[in-house]
């Protein structure tokens, strides 16, 4: 296999405005985030010859979405495609970008995503299969509820753990002026929040977010010529599985994402203990539990104590989701996580800057939780400060 470790870099990152932003468009956010990322990188727009765009689910079936984004940006890419791994796409797109550059298809790749949750001119889609919709099993929340139920049952995890995750990330968002959810939250607030899909409380769930993000990937040599501190991609991995319904086994037997973790760590040549921080894909609190275990960052039985004693917050052993995560920064399908990781490694995070951040893990998760079988992709990046 061709060795890609450290040959490529994330040269630029950007987010559009985000939050509840009515009257805006998906394309508008995509262009806004793309411009910010390319300007952040400091490359001329004419140099962008690869475009990878995540299909926003709410748009339904949009043909040629990535090519349309490129057209609106006035680009004529030599490599351009729409990607469809949901929340696994931000990390996955970086991996595809590296492979495409290595293959010689392009040299500088823009990876982008945006969504407007109430788009005009697009009929609302009802996702799901005939094997579950008839029972009222609709949307991602039912699957996440099932996952939380099994986690708690198989590992004896207490409700407090999930509350502590939500409360910890919320405290991080208070150091992040752009975050969507900044109101202080206590464990009591968490327990008072209503059931949405039991066992998920409202504060187990991220908000709906309008907005987008973008990432610019280029060669290490090119990145070193640019004005920003360089962030190298030293590890990348993905894995894919069906969950809950055959052919998935129990959580214990088949802990989805462990293969993505193994691949990313192996490519990076690191062990989990080497990490300075992590950005965990957390559209729902059970995802944090899942990835902390799958990525060998904690054992299930340690988690509640670790959140209680500050292991995963500022000053702890492994600060995670330093911008508040999807749960509090907002749901930008993981593009927020990549931006936060890059900015931590560059030392640009102001009041939430970690001292001496060298290595950051970013995880992604997404796909079709509302199908039978629920099918999801896991993706991960290991990013390193260039020295």
């Amino acid at each position, binding site marked *: 296999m061709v060795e890609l470790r450290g040959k490529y870099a994330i040269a630029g990152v950007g987010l559009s405005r985000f939050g509840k932003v009515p009257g805006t468009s998906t394309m508008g956010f995509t262009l806004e985030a793309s411009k910010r990322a390319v300007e952040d990188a400091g490359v001329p727009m004419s140099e962008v010859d690869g475009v990878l765009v995540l299909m926003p689910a709410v748009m339904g079936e949009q043909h040629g979405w990535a090519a349309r984004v490129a057209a609106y940006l006035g680009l004529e890419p030599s490599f351009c495609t729409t990607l469809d791994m949901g929340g696994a796409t931000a990390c996955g797109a970086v991996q595809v970008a590296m492979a495409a550059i290595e293959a010689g298809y392009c040299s500088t790749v823009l990876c982008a995503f945006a969504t407007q949750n109430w788009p005009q001119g697009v009929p609302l889609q009802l996702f799901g299969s*005939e094997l579950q919709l008839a*029972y*009222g099993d609709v949307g991602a929340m039912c699957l996440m509820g099932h996952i939380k139920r099994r986690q708690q049952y198989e590992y004896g995890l207490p409700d407090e753990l999930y509350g502590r995750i939500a409360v910890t990330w919320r405290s991080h968002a208070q150091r992040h002026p752009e975050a969507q959810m900044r109101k202080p939250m206590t464990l009591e607030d968490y327990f008072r929040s209503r059931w949405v899909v039991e066992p998920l409380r409202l504060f187990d769930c991220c908000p709906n977010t309008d907005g987008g993000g973008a990432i610019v990937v280029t060669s290490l040599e090119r990145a070193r010529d640019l004005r920003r501190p360089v962030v190298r991609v030293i590890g990348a991995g993905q894995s894919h599985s069906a969950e809950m*319904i055959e052919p998935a086994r129990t959580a214990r037997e088949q802990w989805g994402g462990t293969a993505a973790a193994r691949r990313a760590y192996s490519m990076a040549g690191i062990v989990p203990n080497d990490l300075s921080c992590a950005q965990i894909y957390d559209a729902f609190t059970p995802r944090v539990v899942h990835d902390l275990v799958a990525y060998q960052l904690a054992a299930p039985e340690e988690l509640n104590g670790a959140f209680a004693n500050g292991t995963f917050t500022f000053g702890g052993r492994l600060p995670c989701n330093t911008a508040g995560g999807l749960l509090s920064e907002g749901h930008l399908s993981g593009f927020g996580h990549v931006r936060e990781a890059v900015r931590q490694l560059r030392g640009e995070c102001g009041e939430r800057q970690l001292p001496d951040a060298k290595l950051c893990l970013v995880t992604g998760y997404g796909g079709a939780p509302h199908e039978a079988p629920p099918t999801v992709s896991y993706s991960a990046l290991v990013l390193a400060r260039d020295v």
Partner: protein
Amino acid sequence: MFTIEKPLPRGTEDTAPFWEAALRGELRMQRCSSCGHIRFPPATLCPRCWSETYEWSLLSGKGKVFSWVVVYQSQHPAFNADTPYNVAIVELEEGPRLHTQLVDCSLEEIRLEMPVEVVFEKVRDDVALPKFRPRR
């Protein structure tokens, strides 16, 4: 008043035999003729050995609750009036798991690993949904 109907299965080449069996009061899934694996969801080939030959095998209808959730905030207008309602995943004695709903028990009575058996709820002349009730 305008009402939104629940999305009921129409069946496809792959799934129609499953729904037709349910209408007759039978729980049937595909058993691979090559390796014997019973698969679900229905599909034209076996995910273990890719054999395309199979028979629609009659199952015991017995299983246990693998997971359940209670929907308080409806995600589809046709289910608004049903909230709070349960959605469950049942693991059958023969191995496969399926999305379903638990009936003949209150939300408070539901437990993980609770033994259940299939019942068929006729929701329209031509559609019956396999649901599960506690085995007592």
